[in-house]
């Protein structure tokens, strides 16, 4: 048997596969698919300090080999989340990553500090990249803003901080460098690409929020490019995602330089995807004659 574990910022993941934030709830409804204890890590849909309703519908639209979403991150708010959801996440077994997003530096800090205080979380992921907020601001698309958030969060928590980067930039690898300098313990990439669709019947934008984020297999070549170019430039690990639909796709990310991978949109298409990806990666590594998943990380770089 090969060793499937990987390490991110001192935290050992039993395998390199986790859900992408906002795409798979490890709740009762999902108990019939596979046990969440099989995952490499668990993560929540990004949580804000205060409750938010999310965007008006339509919130999603299918596009060629992908989908647009403008969900707007509905949130029950930190307090209720910590009370109702976190204990369940913690009880599942795998390391717990908590995805948070703030609307101000102060809020980022307050969120991170509160998460730290729970003592039930292994890592915190900063969703710096959702392009759907009414504020229209993408932290990770501005070097100074990105740097400031990461640096101030790092100050208020001992938890390893993962910065989730936006691909809506000139060069995501440069933003990864900025995040690393500011003290991030890992980066995750990519979040969705700004896109939109127009209804030629009504002649209006389809999404309630007008613009949305593109995800799914359509973006995979772009995400692979992001991971590949970033790997050369930073020393902290990368959690790779964007269009993973099969274990082969996940292997592509590992070879490009990702230490772990997240499955997003494909969970909607096939709720067993993550289990299949976990098994497929192990099989590939074994067949290729390696003894550990860690052996294949970044191999395409040479």
């Amino acid at each position: 048997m090969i060793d499937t574990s990987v390490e991110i910022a001192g935290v050992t993941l039993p395998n390199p596969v986790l859900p992408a934030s906002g795409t798979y709830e490890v709740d009762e409804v999902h108990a019939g698919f596979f046990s969440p204890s099989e995952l490499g890590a668990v993560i929540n849909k990004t949580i804000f300090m205060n409750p938010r309703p999310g965007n008006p519908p339509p919130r999603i639209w299918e596009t060629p080999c992908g989908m647009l979403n403008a969900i707007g991150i509905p949130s029950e708010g930190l307090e209720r989340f910590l009370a109702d959801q976190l204990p369940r996440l913690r009880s599942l077994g795998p390391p717990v990553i908590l995805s948070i997003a703030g609307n101000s530096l102060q809020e980022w800090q307050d969120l991170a500090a509160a998460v730290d205080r729970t003592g039930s979380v292994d890592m915190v992921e900063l969703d710096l990249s959702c392009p759907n907020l009414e504020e229209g601001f993408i932290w990770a698309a501005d070097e100074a803003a990105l740097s400031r958030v990461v640096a101030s969060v790092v100050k208020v928590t001992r938890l390893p901080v993962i910065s989730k980067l936006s691909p809506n930039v000139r060069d995501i690898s440069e933003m990864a460098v900025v995040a690393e300098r500011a003290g991030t313990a890992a980066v995750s990439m990519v979040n969705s690409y700004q896109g939109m669709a127009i209804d030629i019947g009504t002649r209006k934008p389809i999404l309630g929020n007008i613009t949305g984020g593109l995800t799914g297999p359509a973006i995979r070549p772009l995400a692979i490019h992001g991971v590949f170019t970033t790997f050369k430039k930073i020393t902290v690990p990368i959690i790779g995602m964007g269009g993973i639909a099969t274990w082969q796709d996940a292997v592509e990310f590992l070879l490009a330089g990702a230490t772990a991978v997240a499955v997003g949109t494909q969970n909607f298409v096939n709720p067993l995807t993550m289990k299949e990806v976990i098994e497929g990666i192990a099989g590939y590594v074994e067949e290729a004659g390696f003894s550990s998943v860690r052996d294949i990380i970044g191999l395409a770089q040479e």
Partner: protein
Amino acid sequence: MGRHPVYRSATVLEAKEEGRDYLDLLLREPEISQTTRPGQFLMIRAWPGVDPMLPRPFDIMQADPREQTLRLFVKVEGRGTALLKSLKPGTEVKITGPLGRPIEDFSCPSMAFLVRGAGAAAVVHLAEEARARGIGVYTILSASAASRIVCRKYLEPVSTELLIATDDGSEGYEGLASDLLDDLLRRKTVDRVYTCGSRRFARHVQRLDREGRIKGFVFLEGLMACGMGDCHGCAVQKNGQGGYFLVCRDGPHFPIAEVVL
């Protein structure tokens, strides 16, 4: 625990075109056919490749636990449903289900169904169950013309009374099926009305509900990616209170007073 949705292969047993726009689809699947309850739906994907990417939601019109079959009734709308139409018996398809909240409350003497087009599919399982429990079933089918009336053969055997209204009068009442409902409510003690397939009828039922004449319920449709509360894509505005329900998780049927139509 058998009620949890599962992701399974199903085999197409029958794919019968009904008129040029409808498809009656019979699938064999041994698990979901046992666990699904009235009011629930499934997601289906029945084509190779990544385009179309997302599975499509359909009400489980009938489930036969002994035969291990599920019956769907599909209106051909776009690309996904066109691909369903080209299915051949023997083909394997992927389904996730049962999804959505089952309808558990049958504590009423009678129910009425006001449905239009493929919306009829949403209430067949419910009508069957109601009838089996000895509840009165009053069904009003609406269509543009006689040739567009669907699911009648499934609803007729379980209906205490089945009424038809067509826009062009080619069968049954010429005019609004909601008139038939109003008339029914005058004639019979009906305390629950389920509607599906027409926003106009839904508004009518909402009005009746608001006036306290019946308790109204509506089956909602809409774009879905996951069908089980993951994507938050299927939001529908809550009435009054603000915020949104998720059609897939909180519905697909709602007390009609609680949603903005």
